[in-house]
């Protein structure tokens, strides 16, 4: 498959700086590393007494959520506040914007408030892309999750978690387990891991929960959890939505847990120092055993903290990209 040059172009300035953050696909290793370096310094900073930096002082960030997510929205809000931005939270039910006409109208209204950045979550794949194409120049778009397409900040916070605990990517075997089909996180992780040079990326699940042609994105498919976890350094568990049972993707939670639930016993098949991650919120006893979720190898709570640092990094980088672009243009 060709690189999606238009998408890549859309999120970069002419000099290759980030100006929107829509997807991890097609971004260079240098750029992803820069995001991680920046996020890493913010992560260290958040341990200090003074947590705020003035990078986005005087800027207005609008959290534009067309789909509910208190957790993601809160971390974006906190990240923006730590960058000294003014934050406006807007929860917009999709019923009011079932037509693109009104999505564009919504956009025009918000632009009139002189916003500088939109953090967008939307149930339609490609919606942040659409907004980035139609927004006035110098407004940055950060994708906070679109349909089944991408969730790049979540993927990057996972990369930061891996890097801080495992160091170099080049030796790492990473397994992503569960509902890959409905997971925008998994797609963004697969791109980021491959670009950062991970030795192997595996996806593990039943065929009903694996997208067709997922291997073309750079992932090796496993249907058997034990085989898939063999010798991996990183295990990423995905959340299983209970409505998947109703729509016949799975017979029952019980059977899913029996086949793909991460227990201490199963985890023992991975490398002894393997780490366990989960984008949250976790379903104990559905995809992961409590003892594993709370165990020594689990980094699930650390991920939340890294989430704020990663979002600060992406927001400050995109804003600076927009400023460079504006100065040049």
């Amino acid at each position, binding site marked *: *498959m*060709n690189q*999606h040059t*238009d*998408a890549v172009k859309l999120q970069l300035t002419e000099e290759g700086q980030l100006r929107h953050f829509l997807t991890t*696909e097609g971004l260079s290793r240098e750029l992803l590393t820069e995001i991680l370096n920046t996020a890493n310094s913010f992560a260290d900073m958040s341990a200090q007494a003074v947590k705020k930096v003035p990078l986005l002082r005087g800027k207005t960030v609008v959290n534009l959520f067309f789909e509910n997510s208190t957790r993601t929205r809160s971390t974006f809000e906190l990240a923006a506040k730590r960058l000294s931005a003014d934050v406006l939270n807007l929860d917009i039910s999709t019923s009011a914007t*079932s*037509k*693109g*006409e009104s*999505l*564009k109208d919504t956009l025009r209204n918000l632009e009139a408030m002189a916003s500088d950045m939109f953090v967008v979550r*939307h149930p*339609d*794949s*490609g*919606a942040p*892309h*659409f907004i980035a194409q139609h927004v006035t120049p110098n407004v940055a778009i950060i994708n906070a999750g*679109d*349909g*089944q*397409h*991408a969730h790049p900040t979540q993927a990057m916070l996972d990369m930061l978690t891996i890097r801080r605990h495992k160091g170099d990517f080049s030796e790492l075997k990473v397994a992503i387990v569960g509902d890959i089909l409905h997971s*925008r996180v998994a*797609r963004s992780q697969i791109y980021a891991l491959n670009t950062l040079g991970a030795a192997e990326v595996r996806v593990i699940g039943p065929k009903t929960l694996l*997208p*067709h*042609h*997922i291997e*073309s*994105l750079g992932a090796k498919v496993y249907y058997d959890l034990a085989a898939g976890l063999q010798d991996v350094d990183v295990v990423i568990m995905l959340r299983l939505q209970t409505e998947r049972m109703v729509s016949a993707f799975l017979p029952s939670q019980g059977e899913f847990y029996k086949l793909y639930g991460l227990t201490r016993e199963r985890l023992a098949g991975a490398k002894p120092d393997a780490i366990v991650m989960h984008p949250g919120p976790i379903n104990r006893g559905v995809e992961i055993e409590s003892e594993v979720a709370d165990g020594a190898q689990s980094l699930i709570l650390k991920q939340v903290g890294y989430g704020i640092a990663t979002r600060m990094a992406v927001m400050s980088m995109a804003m600076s990209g927009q400023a460079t672009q504006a100065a040049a243009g």
Partner: protein
Amino acid sequence: MKVHIRGGRLIDPANKTDANLDLFIEDGKVVAQGDAPKGFVADQLIDAEGQIVCPGFVDLQAHLREPGFTQKGNIGSESAAAAAGGVTTLCCPPTTLPVMDSVAVVQLVQERAAEVGLTRVLPLAALTKGLEGEQLSNMVSLKEAGCVALSNARKPIKSNQTLLRCLEYLATYDLLMFVQPQDYELSKNGCAHDGQMATVLGLPGIPEAAETLDLARYLLLAEQTGARLHVGQLSTAHSLQMIADARSRGVKVTADVAIHHLLLTDENLENYDSAYHLIPPLRGTRDREGLLKVLEEGGIQALCSDHQPQDAAAKDAPFSATEPGMTGLQTLLPLSLRLVEQGRVSLNQMIALLTRGPAEVLGIERGQLGVGAEADVCIFAPEQLWTLNEETCVSKGLNTPYMNSTLKGRVNYTLLAGRVVFQAEQAH
């Protein structure tokens, strides 16, 4: 009124004509080819030097959007687009509002089309009331009112029992049904081919089986009932193989493909460009190659535009929230000529696929220019370049990925029953 079309290359596949012959028209009918009939004095002389003169095109699927969706197009605007595209006969589907399931709506469409007078409009009436897939429409009355065939568009007939009865009823009166196979459940949330691109873009997919599975029940029930089917706008080679098999068993079935399915693939979706949001979806390179192979082998009876004009708002949204379809009447010829340029079909075969082929599907006496035929004529310059843009696009729908592209092959005149209904600007 007497018209003399002079100096063109006359290609009329139905009569196996391909020669430099003048065409003489009187009272709307072809009266002679080659030499003028005795005493013929033309009222109008059309210079077709260096151009192709062929029967006007017969398009098996073009949405006119009237009544009900006139923000997208109307019989006037879309008939004008047809004339500009060399299309002199078209079939319009029953997906109007109200649905074309009554004689009244059929008559309304016919009267408006006659009033406009730029192309022949053959309505496809609803097979079931309200297209709801439950109660049979008054098929015989609709046929008598002038419908050329019956269709349930892409609305599901969920019950096989109902479908069986529809086909039995059709077969009783030898009525033709247009089928656009699409399994309801397998396609209901989808907006892209269920391939690699859909996975990359996170778009809900529509698998090939959505088409083949639905087609299979139609073919089996047609075989059982003897009903006549025409299957339209297919997207997979597998479907065409199934049709070829059914034909070899004596099932009365024909097939067409929309021209863009022979030229585009799902790779075009890469930038979430809603102009490529089509139903059936653009499929992979292998499917496109498969369709082309069947085309070369003669397994496709007609090419159509599947013209679907949309208003700007319908296409101006995130991909999956947009409405499917592209405007296509004016690009039917230039896109078909690409198949000739690519060596897939000869020019004569291409013209047959746009004229005699679809006319035979419908069983109508169009798509040919023998002496005595209605003089529906298209005159085009196959090498002439032109640009499709907001000014040259006649349809109300500007929704086509070919907007602002330079196209090769231009219609310079269209005649309907000997009357010039379209004349290109510099052809004056």
